[in-house]
């Protein structure tokens, strides 16, 4: 007699067996991990904060301190809400020959441990439109949309990036952007190189 429970059990067992099968791995990839580790600065032990004692709790219980803390938190939240409007020139970006200027980029938020939302503001008055191409788009110039320029030629793009440094280029919408040579390589003479930028996405905030 057909037993649905038995069938499910067998299916579960089969799925588990298949998912637990070892996969072939690349020994070179594995070895590369230790190469990268040796090239990385040694991790620093995090300083431990002293545990709060009863005295600290007693201080927090004061209503005056409580009100002051609440006001401070409100102030920080308000500042955080306004922060995206205040773009700090975090790192100067290269200026293109035709006066395109990346005004600055800023990490506006930490999407998660491994992704940062990076906003870049750029002025390209001579261009009818701007696209951004970068490592993450595999240098496909149509993959990332840029907010249309306003009357002054200022555009904005926001992209989610993994922490690290990313190479990006600003160019005309119709232009194909070849992937530039590796960072620091001599003769970085791709069409994108004159207007490209290193976008840092390492910190949780700028």
């Amino acid at each position, binding site marked *: 007699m057909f037993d649905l429970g038995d069938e499910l059990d067998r299916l579960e067992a089969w799925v588990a067996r298949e998912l637990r099968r070892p996969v072939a791995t690349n020994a070179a990839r594995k070895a590369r*991990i230790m190469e*990268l580790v040796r090239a990385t600065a040694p991790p620093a032990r995090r300083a431990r904060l002293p545990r709060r004692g009863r005295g600290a709790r007693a201080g927090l219980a004061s209503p005056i301190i409580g009100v002051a803390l609440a006001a401070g938190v409100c102030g920080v939240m308000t500042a955080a809400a306004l922060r995206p409007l205040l773009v700090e020139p975090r790192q100067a970006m290269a200026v293109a020959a035709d006066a395109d200027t990346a005004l600055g980029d800023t990490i506006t938020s930490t999407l998660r*441990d491994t992704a940062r939302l990076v906003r870049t503001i750029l002025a390209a008055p001579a261009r009818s439109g701007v696209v951004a191409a970068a490592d993450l788009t595999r240098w496909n110039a149509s993959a990332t949309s840029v907010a249309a320029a306003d009357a002054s030629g200022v555009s904005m793009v926001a992209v989610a990036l993994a922490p690290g440094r990313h190479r990006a280029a600003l160019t005309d919408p119709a232009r194909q952007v070849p992937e530039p040579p590796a960072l620091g390589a001599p003769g970085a003479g791709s069409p994108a190189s004159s207007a490209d930028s290193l976008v840092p996405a390492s910190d949780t905030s700028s």
Partner: protein
Amino acid sequence: MTDVAVVERVLAGDADAYAILVDRYYDRFARYAVHMVGNREDAEEAVQDAFVRAYRSLGQYEERERFAAWLFRILMNQCRTVAALGRRRARTFPDVDPGELTLTDAGGAERQELRDRLERALAQLSPEQREAVVLRYGEDLSYDDMAAVTGAGVSALKMRVKRAFARLRELLQEAYCV
């Protein structure tokens, strides 16, 4: 040597000791990443990034948490990032272990076809459902352990696994005939 002892050695300046952890977890991580990301190349890149990221953050590891769970969570985040950034290339299917190829019987081709269908079915699940199935069935984690690494509640995870498996069963119904 326990994971914590290795971590202590690394934090004391012995970077080469980290290779012990890489050897200990690489294969398991690669297996998980292949199922989550869908192809070996991206999977191994995610594993590599996870190990390097973990090394950089080793000072933040706190011993009250199991090291394997901490490390695994970094890998999970890395796999999610690969998916979220749309970096997946066309999904291919896990390479067959060459050692196993020599062991396959006359029904090997059919078995491989079923495996491919399982991978295709997994690819059609939502990332959360795929993660739940792989953690539960592939990694054999208890629901408590799943909750620890995903941050989701046990009841929510049970429901997620149940629904994911029901969906997987639908997708496999045609293929599953063993």
